[in-house]
């Protein structure tokens, strides 16, 4: 299983010799939007079959997730961890590595950040606590990827298996940490000590949106720029597209593999930190949003393009925020929104297949 490097690389973007057909970028936009549209149509058919009004369902989603002021703020706030996870996955996928352990890295970093910041705040001001918490989260994520990274780099062990296993271990370890060393004795539900609302990430103007989303957008733009424009990014992409060629060109493939894992997992950890420092202030033992696995298809839909990931993430956040209300109003289970997500995946695979056939036909 390898990640097809069908997306544009640093220097292939730009003019295409294909004069008659559509420009390449437009094809990509269409390829990304078509599955979403088809999924919405298919979802409407399912809603009709269930005797619900699809139009009012979709209107409710948009009204709650986008148009209502409270909903919009929730949507934007939700974007922060998703975008950071997107950035994390872009680094890994562009380098041809499957970091499927982002959820473990995320949760473990969240727990450590929560415990550390709640403890530190007793003696230091919050403007110190917050950056230290984020750095700690990054470090925890990176460390948690070390075993898969070293195994992949020096033994060639398949990272899909190891990162997934480490993810389960990470989630379990996070649970242990919450229940034993970091447990807040004053609550009945096991959870870490809580960082007071006033000590969390500052909010933007007069909203409930914290600056986490700004951090996330800046980070993903930097990641996008590094991956597409810099020598470092090109080296990672070379390793991803053809490790033998990378070795032939004198790149240290094992070293770059470890660095890639460190960056990717670090960003996943940062996502956990930002979510805790911005929104929750603590981690409860039953909290595991598993954003990582939800975001993977979006990163593929966006073809590893950071800017596109921001757009898709916003759409997904709106769908999940607005979908709760819309499902309730339509008297459907909360999980109905997952049906839409599944449909997007199915149509995404179909479009991908058609595109692959198109690519085959172009080969001389």
């Amino acid at each position, binding site marked *: 299983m390898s990640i097809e*490097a*069908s997306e544009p*690389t*640093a*220097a*292939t973007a*730009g*003019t*295409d*010799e*294909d*004069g*008659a*057909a559509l420009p390449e970028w437009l094809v990509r936009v269409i390829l990304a939007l078509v599955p979403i549209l088809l999924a919405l149509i298919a979802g409407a058919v399912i809603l009709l079959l269930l005797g619900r009004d699809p139009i009012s369902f979709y209107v409710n989603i948009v009204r709650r997730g986008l148009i209502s002021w409270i909903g919009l703020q929730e949507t934007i706030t939700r974007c922060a961890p998703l975008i950071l996870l997107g950035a994390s996955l872009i680094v890994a996928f562009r380098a041809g590595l499957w970091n499927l352990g982002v959820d473990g890295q995320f949760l473990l970093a969240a727990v450590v950040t929560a415990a550390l910041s709640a403890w530190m705040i007793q003696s230091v001001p919050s403007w110190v606590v917050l950056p230290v918490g984020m750095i700690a989260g990054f470090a925890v994520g990176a460390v948690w990827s070390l075993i898969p990274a070293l195994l992949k780099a020096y033994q060639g062990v398949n990272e899909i298996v190891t990162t997934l296993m480490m993810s389960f271990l990470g989630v379990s370890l996070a649970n242990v940490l919450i229940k034993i060393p970091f447990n807040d004795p004053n609550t009945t539900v096991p959870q870490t000590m809580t960082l007071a609302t006033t000590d969390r990430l500052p909010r933007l103007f007069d909203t409930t949106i914290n600056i986490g989303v700004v951090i996330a957008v800046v980070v993903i733009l930097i990641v996008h720029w590094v991956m597409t*424009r*810099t*020598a*470092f990014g*090109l*080296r990672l*992409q*070379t390793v991803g*597209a*053809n490790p*033998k*060629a990378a*070795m*032939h*060109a*004198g*790149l240290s493939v094992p070293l770059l593999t470890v660095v890639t894992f460190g960056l990717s997992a670090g960003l996943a950890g940062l996502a956990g930190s930002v979510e805790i420092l911005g929104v929750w202030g603590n981690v409860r033992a039953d909290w595991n949003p598993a954003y990582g696995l939800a975001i993977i298809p979006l990163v593929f839909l966006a073809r590893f393009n950071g800017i596109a990931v921001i757009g898709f993430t916003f759409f997904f956040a709106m769908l999940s925020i607005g979908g709760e209300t819309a499902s309730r109003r339509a008297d459907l289970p909360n999980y109905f929104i997952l049906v839409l997500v599944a449909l997007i995946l199915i149509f995404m695979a179909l479009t991908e297949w058609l595109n692959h056939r198109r690519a085959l*036909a*172009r*080969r*001389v």
Partner: protein
Amino acid sequence: MTDLSPTAPGETETNHPIVLVDGVTKRFPGVIANDDVSLAIYPGEVHALLGENGAGKSTLIAMLSGMLQPDSGQIHVRGTTTTISSPRRALELGIGTVYQHPTLVPTLTVLENLMLGAPWNQRMNRAATRARLTEISNTLGITLPEDARLGDLSLGQQQQVEIVKALWRGEQVLILDEATSMLTPKGVDDLGQVIDRLRTAGIAIVFITHKLNEAVRFGDRVSILKLGQKVGDLTPQQLAELSPEDAIRNIVDLMFGAASQGESTAGSESKSELQSAPVVLATQRLATFAGLDEPSVTQVEFDVRAGEVFGIAGVDGNGQKQLAEALAGQRPITGGTLTLEGRDISRQTVVQRQKAGLRYVTDDRLGEGTVGTFSIGVNMLLKRIGDDPFWRRGTIQRKEVERHAETLIERHDVRTPGPDTPIGRLSGGNIQKALLARELDNAPLAVIYNKPTYGLDANNIQFARRAIRDQADQGVATIVISTDLDEILELSDRIGVMLGGRMVGIVENDRDAQRRVGELMIGVGVAA
């Protein structure tokens, strides 16, 4: 007509082609892969389709086997105009294809591989499969170990299984795409016998190749493709009248025009001049341990002077690749030294050696030489990522990259729509030109070429050899590793022979060289 029962040749020759390709054109962005091509394929006849890399053979085959549709023109099968809409449809029409690259599952047995094509909703019938295998094997005059794992078979036998599979449903047309490219000389002979049996059985065979002598040896009829067009053919009558040499000469004229024979380029500098030139690259007791699966290299000693071409001959797999990689820095040197202009570089990295002027042109052009999805521009700088002026403060300067690529594209005559084209879309010859352009750019001192013309067509072979010789004449110390003895003899000033990971002898390239190198290659006159 679903049976392979032998029929006498000639009698069934009704002069009606079983497949008729009529004025077929296929365009790809920027290229016309097939331009108004017409072919007639007759039962009981081997139709050799000859052409250089990128001449359009693969496209034509893809249309016959249902992978591609023609933009215009028609394909008639048994007299009716037919759309071959899919590979499955091609099989239904009785057109079986054996592709250049293996399509069978190496971990399954021969029998299991043959059962794979059965409809999904039917039970697999071992007995029937076995019977059918025996039937086809008898027709082909071969015996296959039915229960052996496919991966354990020789490449020749694996190909026989592919042929059996392509004829499984009584196909009457068999397309063989570069069928000899992976075979040993013995394997080629065996294939020849199989082809004879098929011809006798009345099967129409399309034999695709880029090798002249094979086209003449196997073909009853030869069609020549060049740049997407059919530039000529030889009918069975013509082939029968001509001697093989004359036939080849005729074909060469059709393919390349009159001027094509390469002159020996070696020795354009006099020996005395060479001997006074400084030694550029030298090894002393060089060794590299390559593990148990590959040949290790030990005790290799040679030196190469400025302007000299040092050929390294040997049967494939005697440590040539490992030696090349050790010289280039891709593989650690585990003993001895390597010096460039007198400085020991045996501990330096690939990049340091590259910067110092040591270049390595790999034989694995797509596998390790290039990144197929990257643009030509980036591939031209693959070994210089991060260097000024193409990257400033770590950021790519696209204008500079493009300008650099355009200069090299022009200097080395790389045929491409532009520097932004992914290099994987170019033909093999053009990828090799791009690779040569990259390695010869920026003042090389010493260049190692590993099988520099492997898989190229005659024109590109000449082009590559001339480029190698020109570089040497400009004072570059040159190492040419090749399994093609003619190539070594044409290019080299001196020749070293590798056997079992050692350099068993170094001879001057004089009149006697061919015999002595040949003996050394098989170990005659080598001290144990």
